[in-house]
């Protein structure tokens, strides 16, 4: 376990070095968040009765999403891992006395945490002070806030497990490019990043709630504002745990298979 923690720390410290990039990222995300909220306001004006959440809940959702973009951004892969599968350096990875699944998992979580860490605080602080309906509201209750944190940790782990599926699949296909692009567009729709899941028609939403991608940002962001509460919330959190376990068991089995038949490219 200690080796994985040190891998994790190493990645975390490296990630924290990119401060200028983080600053630029903050500015960008502010703008995106703002535009997103303007769109939702425009739709709200068109027909308030058709609007499925409160305006405040949507704007909190948008700001949390922007602040924690690095947690759930579909494109956040470790390019290095794809590289070493392609160029054959995978051989060195396999020589190490660690399990590649666990090592890559630790790296994925660390990458996301380090990227988010630098960016989220300034965004959240400013968003809190924006006027009501445009900014980040307070959590629905203290309890909701605690459940939000718990669900957020689960969501991050589920996201990292989903990444792992793509890495592991690249062990079989060698070039991960096509997989990666496909993954990105699927994640964005199914996880509620393009539009929050409540905006889908009821019958579509009911199915979408069950997919593994919905166990990422969708759950904590909606718990925060109270949009998801009571029995439905518990169901969503249990589903997160379910997916986390299932994906990891599956990922490990596939990784073990992949390692065995891994073809090392080049010399």
């Amino acid at each position, binding site marked *: 376990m200690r080796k994985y923690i040190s891998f994790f720390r190493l990645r975390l410290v490296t990630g924290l070095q990119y401060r200028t*990039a983080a600053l*630029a990222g903050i500015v*960008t995300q502010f703008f*995106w968040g703002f535009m997103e909220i303007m*769109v939702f306001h*425009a739709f709200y004006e*068109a027909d308030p009765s058709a609007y499925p959440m409160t305006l405040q809940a949507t704007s909190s959702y948008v700001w949390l999403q922007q602040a924690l973009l690095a947690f759930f951004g579909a494109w956040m892969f470790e390019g290095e891992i794809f590289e070493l599968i392609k160029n054959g350096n995978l051989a060195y990875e396999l020589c190490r006395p660690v399990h590649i699944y666990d090592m890559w998992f630790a790296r994925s979580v660390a990458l996301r945490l380090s990227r988010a860490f630098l960016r989220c605080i300034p965004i959240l602080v400013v968003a809190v002070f924006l006027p009501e309906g445009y900014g980040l509201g307070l959590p629905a209750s203290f309890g909701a806030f605690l459940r939000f944190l718990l669900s957020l940790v689960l969501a991050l782990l589920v996201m990292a497990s989903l990444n792992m599926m793509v890495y592991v699949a690249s062990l079989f296909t060698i070039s991960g490019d096509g997989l990666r692009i496909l993954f990105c567009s699927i994640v*964005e729709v199914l996880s509620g990043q393009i*539009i929050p899941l409540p*905006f889908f028609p009821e019958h579509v939403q009911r199915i979408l709630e069950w997919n593994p991608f919905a166990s990422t940002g969708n759950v904590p962001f909606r718990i925060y504002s109270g949009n998801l509460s009571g029995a439905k919330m518990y169901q969503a959190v249990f589903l997160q745990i379910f997916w986390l376990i299932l994906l990891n068991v599956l990922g490990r089995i596939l990784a073990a298979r992949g390692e065995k038949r891994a073809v090392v490219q080049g010399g």
Partner: protein
Amino acid sequence: MEKKTSSLKLYMHYLQIIIKSAMQYKASFFMMAFGQFMVSFSVLIGVYYMFQRFSNVKGFTYNEVLLCFSIMLMEFSLAEIWARGFDTFPSMIRQGTFDRVLLRPRSEVLQVLGSKFELVRIGKVLQAIVMFVYGMTHVEVRWTAAKILTVLFMLVGGVGLFTSLFMIYAALSFFTLEGLEFMNLFTDGAREYGKYPFGVYGKRMLQITTFVIPYALVQYYPLLYLLDRTGNPIYIFLPLAALWFLIPSYALWRFGVQKYQSSGS
């Protein structure tokens, strides 16, 4: 004139080589093109479901938004295909290959443009065309020659505008040596939010997109003409006015080239 035609010939030659080499990896090419298609398709899914719930946004219906989205996407993707060289320019600076470009007796812009031609983005263009045809046949307006002309001008103005933005992105890397992430706001961001007419984002945003970076000139105003919201013929030509943006961006590029000190690698 002699030089002009030979420049065009040279550019065509560049294209030929790039396309030939891309076709060596056909499977990869089609997969990437499909990927490009999927990326913008997911945005369309979002728009589609929003309009399942709401009948309009600021008075624009689903079909009208599709028309707007498709034209914006086409402007962006066409610019992306041919001006992608600017997009990858920061790496050219870092690796020192721009020194080689300067040594050759041809315009730098031509060589940078000719260094990349990303045909895989055709996936996006294809989607834009499908959306455009759907939107065009479903909106309740009569299509006249003037309107077709407006669409053409929108494409010309839009491709010009996005090309200038890519050029600014490249020019800035003369000073910073790396690509600046926030520039994505003005390119990818504009495409992303340009799916809705800029009037949707409030008055302030409309002013900025009219006078500072003229997105609205290639999107919102001509769209009003297409949809019969205004009969003023000036709106037909407004997209061409957006081309003024080429001037400051080319000036910045020239300034960058003059200031350029090799990165030393």
